[in-house]
């Protein structure tokens, strides 16, 4: 068994996901306690270029037409062989639509343990996972021999996983990938006719606490006064009160505005995943125990229905 840390790079349509860099940053810290190397594992087809800015000691690259885009079946077969051959100390996946599709299956297939929702590693190499809607942290020794870890963002800055220098790349041969049971038919693009909330420098974001569709107007007025856009958490979009293009979170957009003004958002991890890297989060929520206050820079428990109309007026005056 080696002491190396593998990171399974996630990419879709030629774009490496932000989470991949967070995983590399986490792997770097973990490697210091195991005294091993950080190895990025890149599966793809004509995708060597994606390795150029990965902050890894080396890259294992596997090329196959069936690996061009992510599908669980092909990835799982390819990774099972690699893990068995190299027996790394840990393999880090995203706690995402990609990593979660394969990490558990590999655990059952290879008999190696899996750790979910890991947010960070301690200096002595323990995992720290975030569970129960962000309300509980669980810590423990990294199980062996090869721990499969799915990682949530938030614990490390993604910049730490990027490097100006391209790492050394070793091409490894792909196994036979035949009789695959899962195939990608096509991608359906998100609706882009609306504003791109990922490009806004400030967002007024509404959550379940907004109570009804009618109250969205309050947020709209405030955003209009501030000259920014309105975004929303999943319950609001599920209700059909806001279009999917405004959804922030795991299944929506990832945003990093200067100010993220969260109105009646509790701060569930699925939401935090989409906005946790905002420069300043300001939370307005009547529940003083809402987890959003744990990540916000400023907070208030004043009722938003009292606050917003006053705030809108004052913003207009301040201009």
């Amino acid at each position, binding site marked *: 068994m080696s002491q190396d840390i593998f990171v399974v790079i996630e990419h*879709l349509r030629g774009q490496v996901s932000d989470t991949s860099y967070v995983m590399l940053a986490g792997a770097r810290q973990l490697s210091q306690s195991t005294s091993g190397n950080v190895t990025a594992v890149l599966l793809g087809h004509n995708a060597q270029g994606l390795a150029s800015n990965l902050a890894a000691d080396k890259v294992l690259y596997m090329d196959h037409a069936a690996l061009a885009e992510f599908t669980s079946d092909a990835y799982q077969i390819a990774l099972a062989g690699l893990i068995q051959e190299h027996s790394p100390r840990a393999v880090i996946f995203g706690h995402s639509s990609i990593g979660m599709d394969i990490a558990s299956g590999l655990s059952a297939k290879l008999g190696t343990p899996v750790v979910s929702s890991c947010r960070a590693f301690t200096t002595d190499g323990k995992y720290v996972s975030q*569970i129960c809607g962000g309300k509980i942290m669980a810590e423990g020794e990294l199980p062996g021999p090869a721990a499969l870890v799915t990682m949530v963002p938030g614990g490390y800055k993604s910049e730490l996983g990027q490097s100006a220098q391209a790492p050394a790349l070793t091409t490894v041969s792909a196994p036979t990938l035949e009789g695959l049971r899962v195939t990608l038919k*096509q991608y359906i693009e998100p609706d882009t006719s609306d504003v791109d909330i990922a490009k806004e420098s400030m967002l007024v974001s509404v959550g379940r606490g907004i109570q009804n569709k009618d109250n969205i107007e309050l947020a709209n007025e405030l955003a209009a006064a*501030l000259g920014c856009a309105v975004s929303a958490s999943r319950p609001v979009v599920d209700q059909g009160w806001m279009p999917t293009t405004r959804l922030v979170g795991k299944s929506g957009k990832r945003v990093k505005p200067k*100010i993220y003004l969260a109105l009646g958002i509790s701060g569930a991890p699925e939401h935090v995943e989409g906005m946790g890297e905002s420069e300043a989060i300001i939370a307005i929520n009547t529940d003083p125990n809402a987890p959003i206050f744990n990540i916000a820079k400023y907070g208030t428990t004043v009722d938003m229905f009292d606050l917003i109309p006053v705030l809108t007026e004052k913003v207009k005056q301040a201009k």
Partner: protein
Amino acid sequence: MKIAVPVKFVPDLVEELTIDPGGAALDTTWLRLIINEFDDHAVEQAILLKERGSGQVAVTTIESEGADDFLFAAAAKGADQLIKLTGDFSSANNHALARVYADLLKELQPDLILTGVQAHNDLDGSVGPLLAELLGLPYVGYVAGLTVTGDKVVARKEYSGGLVAEVEVKLPAVLGIQASEQPPRYVAYSKIRQVMGTAKIEERPVSGLDPSGGTAVSRMFQPEVAERATMLEGGADEVADKLVGIFKELGTL
């Protein structure tokens, strides 16, 4: 078509969670359990598929507080078969759970297995993909909407950024449901009570859990409050003034 939905119960976050004196687990004194919300969506999706075509829906869970009520509610929604696994599940992690469900599902031989894509207390992977591997079936998660044609299912898989992939999966298969095509429906309590008189819950005893492949917790704690927000005190007017100041300071106004 036979559809099976194995579901799991999780701590209800409406109750404040506390750590037990041992410091490595949740205190169960006041813990209330609730159906994993994603599993609830999986049940709804199964019922929707049944209503759209033909089929039989089997819903199964392990013995716990609220399990019977949940199963009867599923029957009132349209589930055909209710199975409760009985035994001591106090040490069950997802690996153990997936193994007992796998044993049951080998016998039921469903064409499609739907589970919630995850649960908020998952610490050792998620039940769906574990189950798929144990049964030798393909798995696709983050599914919000699906169409079954012949021996294939086309699933709409969600990625971050709103991107959706249409993925074709050969049946039998396991899908991890992120959201059902319609929100889980409400059933009038009178209907549930009626079902309680007619529907039968099959009980199947289970013994010898195998939690291997899981992970051990040495310490549980609540996230540190040190990094908590600076709270702005005062009434609406005062807080609004402070916010305007912050907006200016951070350069958005």
